[in-house]
């Protein structure tokens, strides 16, 4: 009797482990439209309404926890915001002056290119679920291909770039965040114009690297990093140029080759309630998303 129980236990364990290994191998081996991924997308679509309903129903509990955290952090945040307000006042004065000059220059060269995010046909979506692992930084949103969403379209919020669409089904989509290990975007420093790539630091959530910069010395702490858009017609970027990504937080290393530029994203990737998907990210338009 005891032997039978032991044999049964071991058989179940072996069968489950074998199932896991078969799933892993099959998932890695198949293409993006393979049967397992199709089943996964179908299951997500089935559960999505339940998740969205639960997300709305449980929002008061999340807000309650958020209130405790906000109260604790309020004083520090007030001091920080006061300092930031003073800095922004000066910046606004400088920008107003620059805006006037800019308008004059635009008139001079008859630079009548349209601006504004409306040109990219943004679709607002509610975030109803997010991953909790550092290895897959994704969120799920309640808009899908029936709303015009497609794979690789850029996703933004009021502060800047959030990520891009990873997979999409009829009524919902999974968005890969900036901090996902698989994410990458061509970018440039707004002040110096140095171009490079913004990549996540895997295993360090909230930390991004501005890498592959030809003249990294020209990039300074505090510089704003924006998307570069399409540089070559052969390799069109899915991201329009000029979307704010983040600001240079710190620079490590002295030499040209070992210089590591860390970027702090503008968008708070841990607190996303609504995002916008740019469904027509025509790369030759200039986005004028406001920098924070």
């Amino acid at each position, binding site marked *: 009797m005891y032997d039978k129980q032991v044999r049964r236990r071991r058989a179940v364990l072996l069968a489950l482990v074998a199932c896991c290994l078969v799933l892993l191998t099959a998932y890695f081996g198949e293409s993006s439209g393979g049967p397992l991924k199709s089943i996964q997308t179908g299951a997500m679509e089935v559960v999505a309404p339940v998740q969205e309903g639960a997300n709305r129903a449980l929002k008061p509990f999340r807000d309650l926890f958020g209130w405790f955290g906000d109260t604790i952090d309020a004083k520090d945040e007030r001091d920080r915001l006061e300092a930031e307000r003073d800095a922004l006042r000066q910046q606004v004065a400088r920008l107003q002056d620059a805006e006037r000059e800019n308008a004059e220059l635009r008139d001079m060269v008859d630079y009548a290119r349209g601006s504004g995010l409306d040109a990219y046909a943004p679709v607002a979506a509610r975030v109803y679920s997010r991953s909790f692992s550092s290895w*897959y930084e994704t969120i799920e949103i309640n808009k899908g291909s029936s709303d015009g969403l497609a794979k690789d379209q850029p996703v933004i919020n009021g502060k800047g770039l959030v990520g891009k669409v*990873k997979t999409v089904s009829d009524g919902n989509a999974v968005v890969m965040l900036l901090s996902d290990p698989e994410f990458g975007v061509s970018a440039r420093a707004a002040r110096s114009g140095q171009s490079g790539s913004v990549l996540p630091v895997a295993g360090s959530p909230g*930390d991004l690297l501005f890498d592959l910069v030809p003249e990294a010395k020209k990039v300074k702490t505090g510089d704003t990093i924006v998307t570069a858009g399409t540089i070559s017609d052969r390799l069109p970027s899915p991201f329009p140029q000029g979307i704010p990504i983040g600001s240079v937080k710190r620079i490590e290393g002295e030499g040209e080759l070992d210089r590591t530029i860390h970027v702090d994203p503008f968008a708070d990737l841990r607190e996303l309630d609504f995002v916008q998907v740019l469904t027509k990210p025509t790369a030759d338009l200039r986005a004028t998303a406001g920098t924070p």
Partner: protein
Amino acid sequence: MTWNATSIGRLFAIGLVGGILQLTTVSQVAVFGVPADLSPLLVATVGLLCGSIAGASFGFGMGLFMDTLLAQTLGVTSLVLLAVGYGAGRLRELRDPAHGLVPVAVGAAATAVAAIGFAVLQFLLGVDAPVSLLLIRQILMTIVLNTLLALPVYLACRRVLAPFLPDDPRRRRRRAYTTGGLSPLSRA
């Protein structure tokens, strides 16, 4: 554990509700910068209450559910949670621990095994990530948070599964002591 359609249905409900709660609420509430992770706690609790086969099967199912809903590589979370459930179940079968804080210790150990196991599997699968201090801090903070949540999760699951469980060791001993020959009152 009494196995019938109702008990299996309750286990299924625990997994479904726990999984959706994790994805829609718990994962969005960050304490000390990290969210808690209910899945290893639920799996360890089921293992501790129902045994190794139930723990391993529940872990496999829970992992598959999470991987599916988060569009992750299928099988990774299942493999990790399967080990957690089986380990917790074997602990119960071999030791039958009766101390009230056992769920807390098991919850902490389950979270550590799940977090480290998941990281190791990701490294083995080729994710090029440095073992940063931030990652270690995040794992430690998740363990601390889950340790705090372990007892409420255990009590909630035990309440749901109570009609199908044998008496727990403490209650069994207390009853033997007060009603049977072990009581000093009975010698008087």
